[in-house]
């Protein structure tokens, strides 16, 4: 985990610096106010974030120099590939639901995910893809009267 902590610490410290000097000043509107400026709290937090991230990276660096532990890396290439495919499916599902609505997009998303996870029973895929979508549609439309995509 030391390498991951070192990389994470450096990345988070950079995020903190970016927040302090770029995001917060540029993306906060100026105006008349009494007391502390609206940038105060996020800047305070960003300073804390940067300091803690530096501390994390430094600690990881010293541990690495001392030999580190023999812990397995938290993410390997195979995990990342799996994550990327799953993430792409979720994003694609959300886009399809956005354009064609939940009644079309929902079953497609569920069916695609089931096939991706190794499900090969057509009956199971059809039942799982349609029944929960129908249940949510009926519940939201007739009981909760809530909007659906």
């Amino acid at each position, binding site marked *: *985990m030391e390498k*991951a*902590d070192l990389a*994470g610490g450096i990345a*988070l410290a950079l995020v903190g610096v970016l*927040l302090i000097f770029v995001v*917060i000043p540029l*993306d*906060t*509107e100026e*105006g008349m*106010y009494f*007391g*502390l*400026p*609206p940038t*105060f*709290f*996020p800047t*305070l937090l*960003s300073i804390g*974030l940067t300091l*803690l*991230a530096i*501390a*994390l990276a430094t*600690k990881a660096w010293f541990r690495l120099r001392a030999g580190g532990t023999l812990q397995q890396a*938290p*993410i390997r290439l*195979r*995990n990342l590939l*799996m*994550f990327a495919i799953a*993430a792409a499916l*979720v*994003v694609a*599902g*959300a886009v399809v639901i*956005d354009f064609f609505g939940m009644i079309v997009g*929902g079953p497609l*998303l*569920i*069916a695609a*995910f*089931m096939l991706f*996870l*190794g*499900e090969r029973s057509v009956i*199971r895929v059809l039942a*799982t*893809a349609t029944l*929960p979508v129908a249940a*949510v549609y009926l*519940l*939201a439309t007739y009981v*909760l009267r*809530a*909007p*659906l*995509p």
Partner: protein
Amino acid sequence: MIEYMSIAAGEILTPTVIGYIILGVLIGYIVGALPGMNRTTAIALAIPFTFTMPPAAALSFLIGINKGGAAGAAVSAILLNVPGEPSAVVTTYDGYPMTKQGKAQKALVIALVASVVGDLLATVVLILLAQPVARFAIGLGPIELASILIFSITFIAAVSGDSFYKALIAGILGLLLSAPGIDIETGLPRMTFGLLELYDGIPLLAVAIGTLALSEILVQIDEGWRGDHRYPQVAADKAKDSEPVFGMKDAVQVAPSILRGSLVGTLVGILPGLGATLASFLAYTWVRQSSKTPEAFGKGAPEGVAASESADNATVPAALIPVFAIGVPGSLSTALLMGAFMMHGLTPGPFLFKESGSVVFGIYLGMLLASAALLLVGLFGQRIFSMVIQIRKSVLLPVIVFLCIVGAYMEAGGMFGVYLMLVFGFVGYFMKKFDYSFVTFVVGYVLGPMAELTIRQSLIISDSNPAALIDHPIAILFLLLAVFSIWRFAIAGARSMQIDRAATPTDEPSDTPPEGGDR
């Protein structure tokens, strides 16, 4: 008070609301029983479906899920040796050996009775304690409240996860997430990136569903790549018992363990960040040490199951005491419930009893009904739950992904919330993989606005002069406690706590518990 109680009874004691409460407990039970799923995921996914319910009914429904989830986690722990949640790890120590001895039903009933009693006792403590504590908290000013919040976040960071730095970073990231939107004091837009949707801040459900539910699915799919797409099968012969399920002799045998577990669960539940997992470990250790036959523990001792389950369930109502009294959540589920309170127009904290007294009494009544529902659902549904835990991941996970999208859409009323939820799903995946604490992250996010307001007010009142603290002894106490907790738990105690946990005996190691339980 009587007026509040009669209004609450009128709202809660209707077939519809009672139905919601039973449904909540049932959903929680099923989700808790499913290995890899947890109650926080269920609460996050259920919040959008409560928008049209009356506040007391909605919150009773959500608390019912929480209670059901805590009890349901024992089912897979006992039958499969796979804890439904981390807090049920201890239940596997004696629950699974009981199943192997042909006493599965007995173990399940003992777990259920212990859960119901622990839950009920802690609910009574909540009812008795929350209002007096709130009355005291009304007298606290911004300086005291700011110091309590600082203590809560540092204490939670100190006791959650292996790395204090990472836990505190997660807390700060959570606090930062609450910054975008209209500034509470000046009314000026801040960190909105020109997006009108962010003027109201980042929606809670996009954060909660993304980081808790979607990220969990992504992690499980990631694990599924290695070939295990379904949960283990329950051996048919293990579900049959060779002797009477639960008699008076059993009740007498486990009663002291249940009482001890309930006491530990209640005390641990009140403190922020410690959570149900530690409570069940502590209760188990106490009961084992005080037993005349400690050697029987880990080999199928009913007292072990009783202690673990009563402590686990007692933390659920107890954790609501600080939410009701001072508006500070100490766990993931209470952070989500606090978010649900706010979505329903309630402000948790000292003024909750004054402003929404009837709703509070409605929630109390709903919680008591949920305890009764827990017993009924558990008694009549255990056979069903032992089948439910075998649902294939390839069926379950896609449906949850779909519910994530629907839930995020329903809160924000558009696809913006969905895309934001996806972003937090990916963020949550990496947080899980790199061991950044979710508890401090979500608690930080929920407490953000209150923390900002009280810190800014404190600085203005004191003219940014630290010497002004001398007039605020309560604030000094909590700041000292924050420093002490960092030193004791994060620096000096972390290693010894890990050693203690690792040293807890087990006859047979259980599977790795799922992450994201309610610690």
